[in-house]
């Protein structure tokens, strides 16, 4: 646990992330979707203005969800409610904290508000989750105070390939750190662009000091299972659910598959009769500026 590093506040922040492990966190844009998510067994919901695939389609600046929508969703369900703010937009984060959301996602899915700095997350009582593509990025965010890391994946693509790439990168970079001698770690911290104390911690423990979840492009129960096998401890599902033909059934199936990820018979059973999933994009055909995972520094 990271609490040896940053104390009591961090214990409460990562503590809530511990409680969300083995679960599914679903993107919702209104009260009706939040209720469907809770009934399907979601461990938390993420309130946002538009799901990533719509942001991609419609373009324009994507911002924090309007406060009344966040409050409406908080009032509709008893599970934790998360909400997204723009990278570096600490004023949006302050608004979300004052509304009492349970987790803030400083997210590359929204249009960044600062192209140099992320939010100083230590300053907040509300815990933060941040996206990462690799170990260096994950440790920079943890160094700033993130209490949970998720892969960036490629949000709104319906294509799991980027989430897989990021999970594999994290896993192999962590494994590599554990094989290094103590004298090699400072140079490694330099190469990774990560705080030395966190590099030392990961080299010793062989894992991230905060929970690590998967996100970005998960569209089917088997996608969720794949990410669990690659070391994700929970799964975020964004556009995948409410852009599918049968959201209720798919939400239900992804929850069941995530819990029973080691049991392919159950995964097969719950994958039946779901109708067509969201259509999905070939991420190799996306232009550099269309790749949300490139946002964040």
């Amino acid at each position: 646990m990271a609490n040896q590093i940053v104390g009591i506040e961090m214990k409460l922040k990562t503590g809530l992330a511990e409680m969300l492990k083995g679960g599914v966190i679903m993107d919702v844009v209104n009260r009706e979707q939040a209720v469907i998510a809770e009934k399907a067994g979601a461990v938390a919901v993420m309130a946002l203005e538009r799901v990533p695939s719509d942001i991609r389609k419609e373009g324009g600046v994507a911002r924090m969800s309007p406060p009344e929508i966040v409050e409406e969703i908080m009032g509709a369900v008893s599970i934790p409610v998360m909400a997204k703010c723009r990278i570096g937009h600490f004023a949006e984060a302050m608004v979300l904290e004052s509304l009492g959301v349970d987790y803030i996602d400083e997210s590359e899915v929204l249009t960044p508000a600062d192209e140099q700095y992320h939010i100083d997350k230590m300053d907040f009582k509300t815990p933060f989750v941040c996206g990462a593509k690799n170990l260096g990025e994950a440790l920079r965010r943890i160094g700033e105070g993130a209490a949970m890391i998720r892969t960036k994946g490629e949000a709104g693509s319906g294509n799991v390939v980027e989430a897989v790439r990021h999970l594999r990168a994290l896993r192999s970079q962590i494994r590599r750190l554990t094989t290094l001698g103590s004298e090699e770690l400072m140079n490694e911290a330099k190469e990774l662009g990560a705080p030395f104390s966190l590099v030392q911690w990961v080299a010793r423990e062989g894992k991230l000091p905060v929970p690590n979840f998967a996100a970005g492009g998960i569209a089917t129960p088997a996608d969720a299972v794949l990410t669990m096998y690659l070391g994700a401890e929970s799964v975020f599902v964004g556009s995948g659910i409410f852009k599918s033909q049968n959201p209720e059934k798919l939400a239900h199936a992804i929850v069941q598959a995530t819990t029973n990820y080691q049991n392919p018979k159950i995964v097969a059973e719950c994958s039946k009769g779901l109708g067509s999933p969201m259509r999905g994009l070939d991420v190799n055909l996306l232009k550099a500026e269309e790749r949300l995972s490139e946002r964040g520094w």
Partner: protein
Amino acid sequence: MKVGILALQGAVQPHEEKLKKLGITPIQVRYPEQLSDLAGIILPGGESTTMIHLLKLNKLWFPLKEFVQTKPTWGICAGSILLAKTVTHPFQESLEALDITIERNAYGRQNESFIDNLSETSDWKKFFKTDKAIEGVFIRAPRIKQLASNVKIIFKHKEEAVMVQKDKCLASTFHPELTDSTCIHEYFLSLCN
């Protein structure tokens, strides 16, 4: 001795680590047939609504309901909600092993989560002799609003019951698995023995 941790969702791993420190490698329980030879089970923290949903999907609801009436069981936070006879805010079904009324998210949301020292009762002092205070980690925690006379209090926070016991069934609204101490896990294992 075989001890299980309900592993449908939630903070399974921190309990695993505590039990391993005490020489027990726990079984992760996801299916009904795994209950048959367990000496006891931990129902970890997590989301109680999700757990109820998954208990039913995995056909564990009724077998577990039967198990917790007689066998050593410890519910933490969401687990304590599952064990309560009555659940409020909002109302939901439960395994009804302990005659208590419990209110969900009763301190507020995550911003109201807190850590504070607990006061122990004489039952605890008989079991564990130390001057060191027990730390209570409360995360979106429930509150025990009422308890029957056959339910005894093990720990209090500001005069409110936060850990209770009836026979071999324990419920705590806080998270001992997130602290450095293993003493409450030792206490649970003593009930399993």
